[in-house]
């Protein structure tokens, strides 16, 4: 592992730490709706940082992307399909 790779690994880690603080800060400072938007955007960014850099996805071939993205697409379809049923038919906690 070269010095540059070590430095990049640490830089990604700093970013992840900083983004956690951003999420927590947003939950305290911002109104609920804006905070949730920012918090989940930050969560996606953190996941992408880990997947691309630590899981080396940015260097992987298309087959690996396909293996990872197909089930993810199914989950998103599941979310979109389930969404109206529950959100427009409120249930008890």
């Amino acid at each position, binding site marked *: 592992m070269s010095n540059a790779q070590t430095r990049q690994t640490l830089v990604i880690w700093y970013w992840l730490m900083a983004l956690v603080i951003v*999420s927590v800060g947003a939950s305290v400072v911002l109104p609920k709706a804006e905070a949730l938007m920012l918090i989940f955007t930050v*969560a996606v960014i953190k996941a992408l940082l*880990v997947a691309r850099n630590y899981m080396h996805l940015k260097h992987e071939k298309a087959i690996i992307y396909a*293996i*990872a993205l197909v089930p993810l697409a199914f989950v998103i379809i599941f979310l979109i399909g389930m*969404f109206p049923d529950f959100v427009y038919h409120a249930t*008890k*906690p």
Partner: protein
Amino acid sequence: MTTNTTTFDIPTEPYGKVGTWWFLASEIPTFGAILVAYIVMRLGSTGWTEASHHLNFNIALINTFILLTSSMTIVMAHGAAQDRDFKRAANFLGLTVVLGLGFLGMKAFEYSTEISHGFLPSSGMFWSFYYAMTGLHGLHVVAGIIINLVLWIQATKGTLAHHIHRVELAGLYWHFVDIVWIFLFPLLYLA
């Protein structure tokens, strides 16, 4: 008479890596289904935000830092193994195991506090989801710790030299567990 034969190098991924990604692909719907169910149920219900206020935010925040840091240490372990510096690899694998155990210890303390306050899986939909999601995630952390522990033993005994790729595969799994927590933390503690 001579014949010319042409051979082609078909680019293939290592079987272990493809297999690990297949396994992770099967995990995505497992966690995805429960996360989607949680999101839609929560959006369609009331009282979940109040229930989530009973969770211990500080412990979850510390656990987030612990798990993100452990992702960094296992990358370092993989780098050291590639450099054939197995002492350094063992140190980083050991640190990853310790961080994983730290995560579980904090989670156990959080569970015990919540249970002592009467918040059980049967205390409502929020609590059912909470224990199911964090419990499933916790089991994956346990599995990751066992895998990393085996690699640590191999690194300290010097037998890891023939299986360096295993550190990468263990890392892929560990990062996946980390990504799941990246979404669990805001869904349970910040939303």
